Every structure is written in structure tokens, then in C-alpha cells.
């Protein structure tokens, strides 16, 4: 067999492998979307797990009527929004202090903040739950959001971004008599916007999807986010194995992020790439 033949065969096999794996990976979301439009009167069975006789939107309406998904939506948006706004402010300010200013204890304080990266919040579930109770915040959206108002990782990212701002630019600003916030606002921030956006995308995704912490600190629908709502929904007695209904509920939870992701794929991937670069 010639080298050219061999190369073509290799390429063919690689393409085949790619296609098989990609189809396998995609089959979950494709199935969920398809079945969410299947009439619930047609139970799934062997060899009959995709389309029904016609498409229906009824499962979505039914899901909304069985559980307060609108409220879950509101709660998730409030939680994600609170965290994002707080983080953007705190990481910018702290990142600026660590990048631009000199002060006693700087190294030590920076290391102290990095503790948050070494001991993930998930491990501290039990004592943090006690703290939330003591603060009187149990079963509020604020309880879900509060521990994330400061981010060691975000601070680190912003510090890096600010350190890359050309020194000449900063010196010029200082010469012109800029106050610290003018320096931050006009000189440090503009070139660092991409970093902020990257951080924001992964923060939103992460907190939209979070489950364990809200499970622990919420108790009623007034504060439950979508993820908790979905799991409670799957455990409702009347749902059982009604897959069209379950799929619809699943799609309700993931649709906004999935759409956002499809629109801004490149930015998302860049953001996640960033989020790992500690």
C-alpha cells in the first residue's frame, strides 16, 4: 500500500471515529430536545424513544404548571446577577490594589486570599451552613450568593491583566495628575475588559449550574434556584418515568445558557480556557 493510500485510509478512519464519538456525545442533548416535544400520551418503549406521532409544546406548559419554574428562574437570575455584580467590583478593586499599589503585608494578604483556591467552597459546606444560619440568612437568595462575593481567582486574573498594561501608559496618567480611580477607570480597565468578560462568562455558567450549596441553604420556593427546582421536579410522585415531561423540565433549566453558548461559542471556550489557567 502506497504512502498516499495509507494517509487517505488513516484520514478516513479518523473521520469515522470523530463522527461516531461526536454523535454519541451529542445524543444526550438531541434526545432530550426531541423527546421534550413528544406527546406524553405515547410512552417510550423498546426501539421507540425518539419522535412521537406529532410535535407538541404541551410538556413545557405542563412542567410550568406542576412546579413554579418562573420563580426558580427569577431566583437563579437574582443569584447569578448578585454574584456577578459583586465580583466585578471586588475583583477589579482588589486586582488594582495588588497590581498597582505598594503596601505593608501585600504578599501575605495576597497569599491569604489565594487560600480560597486551595480549599474549595464545596469542602466547607458544613461550617459555612452554620455561618449562614448565624447570620440569619438561611433560605434566602443572598445566602446562596454571599460566599462568592469575593473571588481569589478573579482577583488573580485581574491582577495579571492590570500588570500587562504598559508601564508608560500608567506613568503618563500619574504625571497628568490622575487620581487612583481615574487611573483605574481610564487606564487600567479599558484594556482589561476582555479578561472581565471571560471571567463573567465562566462565573455566570458556574453559578447558574450550582447545586450542592443552594441545596443546603435553601428550603422553600421563594429562594430555590432552577437546579434545585429541577431535582425536586424529578422526584415528584406524579412524574415517575414520564420522559417527555422530564426532558421539557431539563430543557427549561438549560435553555438560556445553551442559547448563549451557541451564540458566543468562541467567547465561552476562551472564557473556560481562562478559568483553568490559574
Amino acid at each position, binding site marked *: 500500500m502506497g504512502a498516499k493510500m495509507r494517509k487517505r485510509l488513516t484520514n478516513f478512519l*479518523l473521520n469515522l471515529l470523530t463522527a461516531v464519538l*461526536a454523535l454519541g456525545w451529542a445524543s444526550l442533548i438531541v434526545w432530550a430536545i426531541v423527546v421534550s416535544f413528544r406527546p406524553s400520551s405515547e410512552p417510550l418503549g423498546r426501539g421507540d424513544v425518539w419522535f412521537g406521532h406529532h410535535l407538541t409544546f404541551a410538556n413545557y406548559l405542563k412542567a410550568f404548571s406542576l412546579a413554579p419554574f418562573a420563580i426558580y428562574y427569577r431566583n437563579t437570575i437574582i443569584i447569578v446577577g448578585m454574584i456577578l455584580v459583586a465580583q466585578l467590583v471586588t475583583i477589579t*478593586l*482588589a486586582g488594582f490594589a495588588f497590581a498597582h*499599589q505598594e503596601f505593608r503585608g501585600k504578599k501575605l*494578604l495576597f497569599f491569604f486570599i489565594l487560600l480560597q483556591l486551595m480549599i474549595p467552597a464545596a469542602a466547607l*459546606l458544613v461550617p459555612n451552613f452554620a455561618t449562614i444560619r448565624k447570620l440569619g440568612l438561611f433560605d434566602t437568595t443572598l445566602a446562596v450568593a454571599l460566599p462568592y462575593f469575593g473571588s481569589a481567582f478573579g482577583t488573580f486574573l485581574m491582577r495579571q491583566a492590570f500588570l500587562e498594561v504598559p508601564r508608560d501608559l500608567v506613568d503618563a496618567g500619574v504625571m497628568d495628575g490622575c487620581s487612583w480611580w481615574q487611573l483605574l477607570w481610564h487606564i487600567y480597565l479599558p484594556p482589561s475588559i476582555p479578561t472581565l468578560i471571560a471571567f463573567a462568562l465562566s462565573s455566570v455558567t458556574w453559578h447558574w449550574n450550582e447545586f450542592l450549596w443552594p441545596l443546603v441553604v435553601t428550603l422553600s420556593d421563594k429562594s430555590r434556584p432552577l437546579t434545585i427546582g429541577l431535582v425536586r421536579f424529578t422526584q415528584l410522585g406524579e412524574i415517575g418515568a414520564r420522559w417527555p415531561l422530564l426532558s421539557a423540565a*431539563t430543557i427549561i433549566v438549560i435553555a438560556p445558557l445553551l442559547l448563549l453558548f451557541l451564540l458566543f461559542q468562541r467567547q465561552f471556550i476562551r472564557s473556560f480556557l481562562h478559568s*483553568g489557567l490559574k
Partner: protein
Amino acid sequence: MTAVSPPLRRSRKAPAWLPYVLISPTLLIVLVFTAWPTVQAIYTSFFRQYLNIAKFRTPTFIGLGNYRQLLTSADFHEVLRNTAIYVLGTVPASIVLAFLFALLVNRAVKGIGLARLSFFYPTILPMVSAATIWMFFFTPDYGLFNTFLQSLGYHGPQNWLGNPHLALLAVMIVAVWKQAGYLMIFYLAGLQNLPQDVFEAASIDGASWWTQLWKIAFPLLRRTTLFVSTIAVIDAFQVVDHIFVLTQGGPSQSSSVLLYYLWQVRFEDQNVGLASALTVVLIVIMLAITVTNFLLSEREGA
């Protein structure tokens, strides 16, 4: 103007306390939700406190009693074994798949963007949603995972989530499915940064695709692999959402891992002391991973 005026035009000097004010919100959050709870967990781990038993509701000092109880607890041993299997299984599997995915989608072929999309999208799904869909895939008889296995000639048990020998494997499969595409992007970035002439030279020398892969690409990406392993290991310890949906740690603890068990002990058994001891165990493991990673990357960097 440059030579004469500078001293007059110098910026109003920011006060010395300013940096402390700027970092104070972040500092406060780390103090209240990372440092303090760590200390608190160590402290309460020396006490016996059950919230659901009236006479044990107030904490009593019992020294290392909770740790002793862990050492002798059959449940804890099972959970540790499960955790070890879970981590040692999912991490290498995710990494190998991630590397494979990266190689496959790093080729200029029509439609390759769709494949990348397909591998990566699980990253942005909430784990509980992914697990809900997987619940169907694991359904005996008509679930697609079983259908697929049967088409490959599998005739074993199908009740993945209810079988004590398969439940842990099932939650591991879901974790790998979710994680591989995320890790893929780091290899993809790594591959794209590799000097292309190395591959060209190798392919002129007639090195096969396979050789190029294992003898050239993988060694060059050693740092990426170290980095990706760290993310994967840490995630393996802290993501248990799918267990809540799929198996609730069962049947009889067979798919319970450390963090899930911690939740059970605290919120089902209401055993605060033991849960605190487990928290300490988890913190020690996390710190050990961070330190190991730090030492390894120092060595790599040198």
C-alpha cells in the same frame, strides 16, 4: 514641559490606607467563608453533637472520638474505597479522552466545528440536568445506553443505577462524559501552540500518525497534562451533583463518595461532629493536592 514641571504635576498621592480598603471586601469574604470555617471545622470535629437526638444536641468534647469513629466505620471505609475508584477511574479516562478529542478536532476537516461543539457542550450544562438525561439513558430495556451496549453484544445486567456493582461505574461514566470536553480545550490550546515544523519533519521522515502522537505531541504537552490532571482531580472530589439525581449514593452506599457522604452525615444523620471530622479530612486532601501540584510544576519549570 517634561524637564521642569514634574514635581508639581505629580498625582495626588493616594492615602496609605487605600489599598487595604480596596482589598477589604475580598479579604472579608475569604476570612468569613474560607479561613474561619476551616478553623471552625477543626474545632467542632472534637465534639459530639447530633441535632436529631435531644440529649446529644448540645456539643460535648470527645477529643479524637469522631476520628476514631471514622477509622472503625465500615461505611467510611466503603466511601473511601469508592472515592479512590472514582478518582483513579474518572481522571485518567477523562484525560485520555480529552487528548483524543483534541487531536481529532484539531484537524482541518469540514464540519469539525460541530464535533468540537458536541464534545464541549456538556461543560456548560448543569450536572443535575445532564444526570437527569442520563437517567433515561441508563433505563433498563429501552434506555439508549443499554440499547447501544446491546448492539455491541453486551448481555450483562441493565439496571445500572440499582445494581450495587454497577452504580458507581454509572456515575463515573456520567462524570467522564461531562468532563472530557472541558479538558479537551486545554489540549487543543496546547496543540495549537506546538511548533508545527516538528510534525512536518516527522511526517516527512515517515513517522505514522500514532508515533507523532505518542512520541512527539504527548511529551511536549506534559505541562498541559499536569495542569489538566490537577483540575480533574479537584473536580472529582468536589462534584457530586449527579449522585443526588442518579443513585443517592446507593444501593447501600455503593456509589457514595466522600463529599456526598459528608452531606449525608450532616444533613441526613444530623451528626455535626462527624461531619466536621469529614470536612477536615476533605480539606487535608485538597491541600495535599494543591501542594503536590505546586511541587510538580516547580520541578517541571526548573
